[in-house]
């Protein structure tokens, strides 16, 4: 197994997310086959891997998508057992998933949706409900930051949004709801270079010493704009390599195949 040791134990900051031997899948079919990962506050971790390697499965399991089953392992979020929390509680506790394929909500206006979400997380944080004017101001500011028109508020959530608009909208919600841990599932895919920059700016704006980001991506392109602290390669449900930014560049040059072969060779040993 190719493993570039980066000594995370040295890091004295609070581990926000700890995965130990996570095995999960759907309908008895194991997709994640033992994942270990530790993320501290202040860090950005990129998770790369070919299609079908289990990247979406990983972040969906962390967000609590009901389709998935956990067979073994543990997940701690800020020291609490994440897997025992219902998905809405995880979100209120500060776990945010930007969907690879954001879901359309027929008949649900974006304004109403954002209002419900913001009220829920604010109440959980012991904050007052925002007055309508303050809410409008805040939402419009976040929309503007992501290059979105206020007209979106009258539209149904994600309905008729272009691919790029859907992704920008996800990051807009990230900025609005201001969670602790952002799980971004291929937020870069399908974006032209301008949209990619806007999305990257949004993520960078979110970054900070009391935030953490798990950035799932297929290509290293976005990593030119969002500099990760760590890069992990997920293949066939296992992290087969971890390293710094240079690992992403190596992948860009060599592709995934060498890692897959190395991983298989390692497994045969």
């Amino acid at each position, binding site marked *: 197994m190719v493993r570039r040791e980066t000594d995370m134990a040295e890091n004295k900051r609070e581990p926000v997310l700890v995965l130990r031997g996570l095995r999960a899948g759907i309908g008895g079919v194991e997709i994640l086959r033992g994942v270990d990962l530790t993320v501290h506050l202040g860090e950005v971790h990129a998770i790369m891997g070919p299609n079908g390697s289990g990247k979406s499965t990983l972040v969906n399991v962390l*967000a*609590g*998508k*009901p*389709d998935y089953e956990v067979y073994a392992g543990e997940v701690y979020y800020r020291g609490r057992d994440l897997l025992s929390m*219902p*998905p*809405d509680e*995880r*979100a*209120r506790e500060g776990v*945010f*998933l930007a*969907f690879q394929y*954001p*879901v*359309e*909500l*027929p*008949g*649900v206006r974006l304004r*109403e*949706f954002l209002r*419900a*979400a913001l009220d*829920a*997380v604010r109440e*959980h944080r012991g904050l007052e409900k925002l007055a309508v004017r303050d809410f409008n101001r805040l939402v419009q500011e976040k929309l503007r930051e992501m290059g979105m028109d206020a007209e979106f508020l009258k539209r*149904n959530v994600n309905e008729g949004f272009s691919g790029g608009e859907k992704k920008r909208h996800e990051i807009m*919600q990230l900025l609005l*709801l201001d969670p602790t841990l952002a799980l971004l599932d291929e937020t870069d895919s399908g974006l032209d270079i301008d949209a990619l920059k806007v999305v990257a700016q949004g993520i960078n704006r979110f970054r900070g010493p009391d935030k953490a980001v798990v950035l799932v991506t297929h290509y290293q392109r976005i990593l030119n704009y969002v500099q990760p602290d760590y890069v992990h390669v997920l293949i066939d449900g296992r992290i087969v390599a971890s390293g710094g930014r240079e690992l992403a560049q190596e992948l860009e040059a060599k592709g995934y195949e060498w890692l897959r072969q190395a991983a298989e060779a390692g497994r045969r040993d």
Partner: protein
Amino acid sequence: MTQAPPVYETYARRFRELEAGRSEPDWLRELRREALGRFLDLGFPTARRGNEPWKYTDVGPVARTVFGPPPARPPLPLERLRRTLPWRPTWRRAVFVGGRYRPELSHLPAAGEEVTVLPLSRVLSQGDDLLERHLARYATYQDDAFAALNTAFFSDGALVVVPDGAEPERPLHLVFVSPESEGPYVHYPRVLVVLGRQSRLCLVESYLGLGDGPYLTSAVREFYLGEGAALEHYHLLLEGEAAYHVGQARFYQERDTSLRSVFFGRGCAIGRNDVRVDLDGPGSEAYLHGLYVTTGRQHLDNYINIDHIKPHCTSRLFYRGVLDGESHAIFGGTVYVRPGAQKTDAEQEDKNLLLSREAEVDSKPALEIYADDVKCGHGAAAGAVAEEALFYMLSRGIGPVLAQTLLIKGFASSVLDEVRLPALRTQLDRLLVDSLPRLRTEE
């Protein structure tokens, strides 16, 4: 029917008693006798094979119950009426309780407001030209036992007349309250609305049940739209849990008329929302939107017929259902396009959201087309709440009950967005949520 079972004898006896006490013009007396005769001949419809209109609804319990008269002076929780119904001070209102007009609860339009509303109990004895011309013309009873029953027995209701060219400003609200009672009773709301040429009206009709016991509301409403007239119509069905309700609306449209109707119906023990639209003049349009919500063991049968008799008419029939518990809802919509009704443009669709596995919907949109130059379409769908959508909301921190509420409201919005009265829209949003006990647990 050779041997009338006791129930029918009760109806016949009751009719003779009523007739003896009535002083009505001959034409009406004749009409009622004929209607009673038809009722006794036809008997209550049964859900047997071959009886398509009643295929999914068994009115056996109605046929077996001996209903008394409604309570004479029942207590009225006014606050509840105000809270449940869109009770606006600016609207005009005629309120009927247990089938009787209640002036102290009503606020009829004054002279000069371009619409007259008369309680039928005040016109039946002296007779009325418009009544004679229109009554039972559109709600034909020859082949319809419930229309016959109502025609024979109704004693009150509303006669609404909008003169040619008149455009009353304020919405008119007809309220039919089914009060609480010791034993089962029947009441027979009756409405006749006559819109003169080039007139318009905004009318809301509400049926509200207050008690938990069984009763029968047999309601017949006839709407005549004179040339160029426009009717904005809302219909709220909010009967009691154990109620039997058979409501029949008949819209007759002359040329260049416009009907826009929105229905909101909550289920009851047996509910029937029977609507018929006759597009009998070219250039007319009928837009019928409906939302039905059933829970527990409720039953609601939407039976809707749109008849394109003349060419160049447009119709839209868009219904949606939200079903929970072990409830049963039916959508039977048929659009007929008669020979010669060329350039008909008709669409209908019924969609259902099933919140429980035990809920059941029979959705049967149908087209019967006998003309060749037409544009018609229909569709039906039923499905559960989309898990993906629910998870998306949960992943934003929204609790499961609120998430469901938002999704259900979203589903209903294509119907409720058709409501043009803001006060009513707000009220319907609330009624939708109140009608679904599963949405009441949190928040």
